[in-house]
């Protein structure tokens, strides 16, 4: 085991928070759909990837300004989410857990299958949102894009909370999540809420992808690992728990980064196992997650 200096430690934690923010957004995407449908959407990583790739294309190929590319990309991915729900989730009735898992996995394969011929195998370069020198914090360096990631994460988390709290659709979605039958009896169009949850989840996923594109390697298969880590974060926080998903995301991001920091030389390659080990430990000890009430 190696012991990093204080400065390195801070640096690792900052990295962890940045990556954790992305995990948190992906986890939130899982949570939104899970609450509305009991579906674990394995295509969540696909939304992340599409968000990033489409934004970069709009920005570099079509030369649209970054903010416009950002919002257009969110719109396009949201539309993809809606089409996905209508085409692949809505027609399936009374499907088993495993059938739905295979459908969403099929969708995720489909998304990367489309992305591969369009954008090719190699990562594409994404411009940072703003240029400038890294900021110093307690001796550690924070790049401006990392600040962007944190900012975008914060904005999306707050926006989703506000949406749930103050809009009619948001309230209806919450009601649907709590009790589908009761919601239906109260006149809420549950099918529409399912559609909305896919739209919202796609938008959140796209946001995550765009924020991380300039720091990570944006490529056709970037979604799969991010998706799985976000999935671990969602379980850690308690599947279906929005706040839990965010806390779970940051927790996994930071622990993963610290594991790299403390790992003996040559062992940092095992970092990808960290999230899954956390997943197994939480499932064996408290399947309802950190914030969940006991499993029904």
């Amino acid at each position, binding site marked *: 085991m190696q012991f990093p200096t204080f400065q390195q430690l801070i640096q690792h934690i900052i990295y962890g928070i940045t990556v954790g923010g992305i995990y948190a957004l992906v986890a939130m995407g899982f949570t939104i759909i899970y609450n509305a449908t009991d579906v674990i959407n394995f295509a969540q990583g696909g939304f992340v990837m599409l968000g990033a790739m489409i934004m970069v294309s709009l920005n570099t190929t079509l030369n649209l300004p970054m903010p416009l590319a950002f919002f257009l990309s969110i719109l396009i991915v949201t539309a993809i989410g809606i089409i996905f729900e209508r085409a692949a989730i809505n027609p399936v009735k009374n499907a088993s857990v495993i059938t739905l898992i295979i459908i969403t996995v099929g969708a995720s394969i489909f998304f990367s299958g489309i992305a591969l011929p369009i954008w090719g195998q190699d990562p594409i370069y994404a411009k940072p949102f703003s240029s400038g020198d890294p900021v110093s914090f307690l001796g550690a360096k924070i790049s401006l894009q990392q600040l962007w990631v944190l900012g975008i994460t914060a904005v999306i988390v707050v926006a989703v909370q506000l949406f749930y709290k103050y809009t009619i659709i948001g309230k209806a979605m919450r009601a649907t999540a709590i009790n589908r039958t009761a919601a239906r009896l109260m006149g809420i169009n549950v099918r529409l809420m399912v559609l909305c949850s896919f739209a919202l989840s796609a938008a959140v996923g796209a946001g995550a992808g765009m924020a991380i594109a300039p720091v990570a390697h944006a490529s056709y298969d970037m979604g799969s690992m991010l998706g799985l880590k976000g999935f671990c974060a969602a379980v850690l926080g308690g599947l279906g728990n929005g706040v839990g998903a965010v806390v779970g995301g940051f927790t996994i991001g930071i622990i993963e980064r610290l594991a790299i920091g403390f790992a003996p030389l040559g062992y940092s390659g095992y970092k990808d196992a960290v999230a899954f080990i956390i997943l197994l430990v939480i499932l*064996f000890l408290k399947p309802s997650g950190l914030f969940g009430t006991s499993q029904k």
Partner: protein
Amino acid sequence: MIKDSSYKKHIPTVILAIILIIYPFASGNNYHINVMTLVGLYTMIVVGLNLLMGYAGQISLGHAGFFGIGAYCSGLLNVKMGLPPWISAIIAIIFTAGIAYFIGIPTLKLKGHYLAMATLGFGEVVHVILSKMDWLTDNPDGLADIKPFGLFGIKFDSSFVMGQYFMAWIIAVAILVISMNITNSRVGRAFKAIHGSETAASSMGVNIAKYKVQVFVLSAVYAAVAGCLYAHFRQFIAPSIFQLHTSITLVTMVVIGGQGNIWGAVLGTVLLTWLPEWLTVAEEYDIMFYGILLMVVMIFMPDGLVGRLTTLFHRLWSRFSPRTQAEENG
């Protein structure tokens, strides 16, 4: 009468055996025979997964992990310790069974989504560990120089295509027969009873925890057998095949074939192993079509192909059955 029906029961096995014997001679294409050998290996895993999913009603998204543990364990024992392939394979299978047992006890307490997630997590941990094995394999790409199986002085290496094909399929058919025997027994009924109603099963004396772990270990053993054969056939193994994507493909083979139907497992495996080969027609769009096909089949045939065919068959059958009954009565 009873004799007669048990005789009929063997017809599909005999037909399968005949097709399997004819295939390599009819095909004559070494590449195709190799694909069919792979189908044989996958059939072993899928039959086990079918017992786990279709019969006992549990889920595993981590069986590529057991496949990988079997392959790497046998390969490493052979390469690093110089054990003969047969011995290393047997040790690897026992080792995998042990891992499955210890993982199975806490995992199978979970249900539905949670079970799916835990098995997925297990599979990914195994994949990461196998990916970082270069300190042991001395090769960043995988494990090389695995010795082929030998029998009576004949080496079953990659040039002996027919030998590998028949070895794989003899074992696969043996696993099929064993599994069918199990499904028609007290143990198989216990598996199905757990799927049908855990409450009723338990009140009838079925130890649910025990049988869940039993079927999980059994399916892991089948996967390990396939893994050992894979390692010593290919003589080189890379971690990339032992990951979530493969686990999900295996599960899809079970579902597409039809859960709770051993023959469905074979059909699903054949279709899904050949599908990527057929899709090469679509060139760079092959992955996309693969994704679409998975979705379409699941949306329109959630019971799988054999389920669909059986329903059709029953519909036809019921049309003729009144006459059959009348004949029996008369």
